[in-house]
């Protein structure tokens, strides 16, 4: 992983590729790499779909090694949805394969002069870029089938569906999983639209003949990975809860807490929650011959995914995640798990962010387009998006765009990006992260519950309400650092409770690179990433006014607890003071 592949899609005579050493980007991986390149090379005021924007695809620092859970991929650019910097993160096979092929990043830049659509094929022998207009408007599943016919079964694909080709704000980049299905997505922020603007339909990776990346100290690395795996397996969340029920295990808990946004953020409880819960989902999957325990990439031991079959036992989609089930469930007043699974498939196939689309549908329901609970109507709307009808293009450009089109006041977005499945009035601390994240409303921006282990920013008394701003800041710093490693964020739960597991993560990094990184070094890395991102956003015109939740969170009481968001603007403005 010692080189960067640049492809200038706008070069005279067609796309031109160059390979270069890491140079100033040495030591960066994942989100650190994508945000470093975007902040250094992309003019903040450029149009996100223009030639000046760049799409950066980077595996994490530990991707391509035997380190368990190291298969996360970062995709960065200026976001067409938020107008700010974006790092969108995905599982699947691509990070491992790309790293084994030796690439620390692929950077797509420029803009093609015509409307040709390109396929990029990368294997041990090199890179081949070809025009293939037969791929135009193919949904992801059909596209991957075609790639299998052309290149065999040992490939990994990064692709866009019709939504990306139509440059929609909710367009994702699909990444194939172990079964070569396009089920994993860099979903947030419209990164698929940027890939579409570069004229690239699919990047096919084949690492045949490539080996695992060798660590500097193999023995120490092997020992660290053993401790790492043991730590993850013995923890109740990573060893039991997530494997058994997946992330959707949160539905019942959030609903009971009164923090489950329902009917477009009107209330915190949904009557149908138990019918779409992770427990019910797992039971349904098992009863239909699917699986409730499955990994999204090789080397995953948490196995929070699964296989969701239809009533006849045929594959319908991968196990929908909590946010997907919520956005098409409670957010839309829909308690039918099968319809949620069908919408998950449709969105994977068209290449759409499931959070953005579910929230957009809920906003449209509030605007009168459909009745809440009309699952079949929602499915029809998603096909409008896939076809690119005028209505579909409104929905496919996300919740904020849809809210404007339908004259809706209650539009749950920050910096133009739809809010995930936790209401910030019930859990105010996450509201701080939604408001101030460089990414727009994003639950994963402050996800790494490891701040106590890192002691980042000093010791905070967790039982004092004023600690919320400080905790959010520290969570964002820790998350940015973990996003650089290629590690799945779910590792944070074991790290939270088990200092020895955090040490194992440090040992992995140190043994691989021959470093002596400690907790302070991790904090420094997180701060460096956030500063680059923050500076880019300031350059793009973001001010303190953009670090706010929509007004209704402060004025509308949220049942059943009847609370409003109480963190003051002055406190929100302190998040980046360090």
């Amino acid at each position, binding site marked *: 992983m010692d080189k960067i592949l640049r492809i200038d899609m706008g070069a005279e005579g067609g796309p031109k590729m160059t390979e270069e050493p890491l140079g100033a980007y040495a030591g960066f991986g994942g989100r650190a790499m994508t945000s470093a390149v975007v902040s250094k090379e992309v003019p903040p005021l450029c149009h996100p779909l223009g030639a000046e924007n760049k799409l950066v695809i980077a595996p994490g620092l530990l991707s391509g090694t035997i380190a368990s859970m190291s298969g996360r991929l970062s995709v960065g650019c200026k976001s067409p949805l938020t107008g700010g910097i974006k790092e969108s993160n995905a599982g699947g096979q691509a990070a491992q394969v790309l790293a084994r092929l030796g690439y620390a990043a692929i950077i797509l830049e420029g803009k093609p002069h015509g409307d040709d659509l390109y396929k990029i094929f990368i294997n041990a022998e090199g890179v081949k870029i070809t025009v293939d207009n037969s791929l135009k408007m193919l949904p992801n599943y059909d596209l991957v089938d075609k790639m299998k016919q052309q290149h065999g079964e040992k490939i990994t694909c990064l692709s866009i569906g019709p939504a990306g080709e139509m440059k929609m704000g909710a367009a994702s980049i699909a990444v194939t999983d172990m079964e070569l299905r396009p089920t994993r997505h860099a979903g947030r922020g419209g990164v698929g639209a940027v890939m579409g603007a570069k004229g690239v339909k699919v990047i096919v990776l084949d690492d045949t003949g490539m080996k695992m990346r060798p660590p500097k100290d193999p023995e120490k690395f092997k020992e660290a990975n053993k401790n790492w795996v043991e730590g993850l397996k013995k923890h*109740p*969340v990573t060893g039991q809860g997530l494997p*058994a029920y997946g992330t959707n295990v*949160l539905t019942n808990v959030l609903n009971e807490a009164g923090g489950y946004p329902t009917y477009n953020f009107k209330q915190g409880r949904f009557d149908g929650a138990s019918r779409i819960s992770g*427990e*019910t989902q797992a039971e349904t999957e098992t009863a239909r011959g699917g699986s409730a325990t499955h990994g999204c990439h090789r080397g995953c031991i948490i196995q929070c995914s699964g296989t969701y079959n239809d009533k006849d036992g045929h594959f319908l989609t991968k196990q929908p995640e909590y946010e997907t089930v919520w956005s098409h469930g409670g957010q839309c007043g829909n308690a039918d798990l099968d319809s949620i699974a069908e919408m998950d498939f449709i969105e994977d196939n068209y290449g759409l962010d499931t959070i953005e689309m579910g929230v957009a549908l809920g906003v449209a329901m509030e605007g009168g387009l459909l009745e809440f609970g009309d699952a079949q109507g929602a499915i029809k709307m998603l096909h409008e998006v896939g076809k690119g009808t005028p209505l579909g293009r409104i929905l496919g450009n996300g919740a904020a765009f849809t809210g404007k089109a339908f004259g809706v006041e209650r539009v749950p977005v920050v910096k133009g990006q739809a809010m995930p499945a936790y209401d910030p009035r019930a*859990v105010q601390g996450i509201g701080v992260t939604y408001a101030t994240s460089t990414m727009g409303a994003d*639950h994963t921006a402050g996800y790494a519950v490891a701040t106590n282990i890192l002691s980042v920013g000093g010791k905070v008394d967790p*039982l004092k309400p004023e600690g919320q701003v400080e905790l959010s800041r520290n969570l964002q710093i820790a998350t940015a650092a973990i996003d650089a490693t290629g590690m799945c964020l779910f590792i944070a739960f074991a790290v939270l409770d088990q200092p020895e597991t955090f040490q194992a993560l440090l040992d992995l990094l140190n043994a691989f690179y021959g470093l002596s990184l400690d907790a302070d070094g991790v904090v420094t890395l997180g701060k460096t990433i956030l500063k680059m991102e923050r500076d880019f956003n300031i350059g793009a015109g973001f001010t303190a006014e953009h670090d706010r939740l929509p007004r209704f969170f402060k004025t509308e009481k949220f049942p059943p607890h009847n609370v409003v968001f109480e963190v003051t603007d002055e406190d929100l403005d302190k998040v980046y003071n360090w």
Partner: protein
Amino acid sequence: MSVKIESLPAAELQILVDAPRYPQFLQLVQQGIILRRQVGCSLRSFLLDQLRLSPQFIEENIQTIFLDGKPVDDLDRAHVKDGCTLALSAAMPGLVGATMRRGGFYASLRAQISHGPDDPNASATAQGCVTIKFFNNVAHLLGKAFLQDTFFITSKNLEDFIRWSRPTDDIKAFLGEKPFDWKAFRAGNSNDELVRVRLKIV
């Protein structure tokens, strides 16, 4: 939901289900089953003495507790009253999952909805009805035992369960002495009307 003990139904719906299909009835413990127990005590005492859970089981398996929808941090300062709802869960993923954990490092992030300390003298010790919900691994560990003991559910929850889980006719059930027709059951005018239930795994 407030339930008068004297209004509890006498006739029992007995459901006979084979072991492979019993998990679909765990839906009932997610929705909430009503138990008649001694109330007016601390939550810790209720878990130990009324639900008969061991301290070790509580410590190892129940990291997230809601009393009337509010996350609980201190088992000794939260009190169980007649008509309350108690939900028990394992440790949960995600920042918000960590936030909901009792006494957890991130509890301050949900300070506005946390369960505050109760006045221990506010409710008398007496028999009462408590709605109990078991989620995730707790449902897996405790659901079977509690479903095989007598419990009550609202007729609305029973109707919802039948509509969505569609128990088939070969799962025999009897209301008192009479065979129970799954398809014919309707909640009636009062959704809060209770049904006494016991599951028998055959």
